[in-house]
């Protein structure tokens, strides 16, 4: 769950979050305020680390390996090399093998996911379209990844060589993915998840867990909504429990339609 201070981090921990993302502005505010979005103040991240017992993540700009060195030095648990911040490099992502701290990276399709894994990402998430409260792009990305995995797993080796070239993915990772019939790393949903039903939908599509950003603290009752989304991820396959936890949550974040941003605005960042 995205949090901007120690108090929100405590609410997230009490609601059952298994990690928090420490950042100065949630994506909806970055979108509204504009300007260059950068790594957060290390002091603010450390305050959040001290406030909770669960792991703390923080974001760096795409390609900005010095921001990442700083986060590793202050002891964050995971780094998100994120398209939500303004990219620092329009050609290169961080060589994540040079770090001990694990990374999560966004992807819109299988090729992008496997390129990030080959650079050293330990976790993949959909990009979705952060800060919109609209799940449509996250659905597009997860469906794309899973459809390509299903295609790859029915291919012969010669076809896999051609497919790897096609989607610009390293062959050995594509072959491993085809064998496993899933990404070889943990795969999260992110970007636009605002309700328990959104979270459950992403789990059905093949995700292992869910990031909720602006959807919690831009809603009417953050503690209650956070707890409901935590339960929805566990019980995604049980509509009766989903109905119970979806009741009486107060207003969801307002959200945006994506007609003008079709295919995503932030999601196009990353190469």
């Amino acid at each position, binding site marked *: 769950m995205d949090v901007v201070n120690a108090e929100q981090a*405590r609410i997230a*921990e*009490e*609601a*059952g*979050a*298994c*990690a928090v993302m420490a950042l100065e502005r949630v994506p909806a505010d970055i979108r509204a305020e504009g300007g260059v979005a950068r790594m957060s103040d290390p002091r603010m991240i450390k305050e959040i*680390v001290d*406030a*909770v*017992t*669960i*792991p703390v993540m923080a974001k760096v700009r795409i390609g900005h390996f010095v921001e990442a060195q700083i986060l*590793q030095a202050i*002891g*964050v*648990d*995971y780094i998100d090399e994120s398209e939500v911040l303004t990219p620092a490099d329009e050609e290169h992502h961080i060589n994540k093998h040079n770090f*001990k*701290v*694990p990374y999560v990276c966004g992807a819109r399709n299988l090729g992008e996911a496997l390129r990030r894994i080959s650079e050293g990402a330990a976790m993949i998430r959909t990009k979705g379209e952060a800060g919109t409260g609209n799940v449509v792009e996250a659905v597009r990305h997860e469906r794309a990844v899973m459809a390509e995995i299903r295609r790859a797993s029915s291919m012969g080796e010669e076809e896999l060589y051609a497919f790897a070239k096609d989607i610009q993915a390293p062959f050995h990772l594509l072959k491993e993915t085809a064998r496993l019939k899933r990404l070889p790393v943990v795969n999260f949903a992110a970007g636009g998840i605002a309700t328990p039903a959104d979270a459950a939908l992403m789990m059905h599509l093949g995700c*292992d867990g869910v990031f909720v950003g602006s959807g919690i603290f831009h809603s009417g009752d953050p503690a209650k909504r956070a*707890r409901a989304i*935590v*339960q929805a*991820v*566990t*019980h995604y396959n*049980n509509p009766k*429990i989903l109905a119970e936890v979806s009741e009486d949550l107060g207003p969801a974040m307002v959200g945006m339609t994506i007609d003008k941003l079709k295919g995503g605005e932030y999601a196009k960042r990353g190469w």
Partner: protein
Amino acid sequence: MAPSNIDTTVIIGILALQGAFAEHQTAIQQLALPRKVDVLLVRTADELARCKALIIPGGESTTIALLARLSGLLDPLREFIKVKPVWGTCAGAILLAKSVHGAKRGGQELLGGMSITIARNGWGSQVESFEADLEVTGMKDPGRPFTGVFIRAPVVLTLEPAPEDPPIQVISRLSPSLLPCSLTSSNSTNEPRTFVALRQGLHFLTTFHPELTRDNRFHEYFVRECVIPSISTPRP
């Protein structure tokens, strides 16, 4: 007990509220066992009631405990632990402890079952996670070390079995040199902080993640030593 019980499938539950339950499922399914074993992912009290044994996976102990409470599973789990074999890995080991250090503010709920005190997150942040070779004397192929994967792992602080409790048996130890500096009090191999796998009665605890390796000797041990004997022995 009626011999028909011998032929039926043994259902081993894996608590699937949060964490590494899928990896445990794969490991159990790959075992070659004398009894037919099925895995059931447990998210409700009804599912728990069908199980003969339970694995509580790694994850976040705060998240798992909260979800257990919200799913109406806390009391059924505590009752289950009184009579059936349970194995806790990492966060699961924390939940099986009698008391915990480093709980979240305001404290956190535990299930109990093993007479130990445990500290959460003994080594620090994620970058302090590590792998270490462990000796596994009571397992298959004991000459081959087991790769222990320690991720924000807990540390056993003290063993406190009451006179009526079953004795606690140390199954595997970590070299004292690998203990976090903040926790090293002596170099003795009988220091509880070096204990990374323990057995007490029906229960089994590992502070590391055997499900994240391809070596399934710990899974085999749990089923062979804890689960199968508990089923074959007639209960009064």
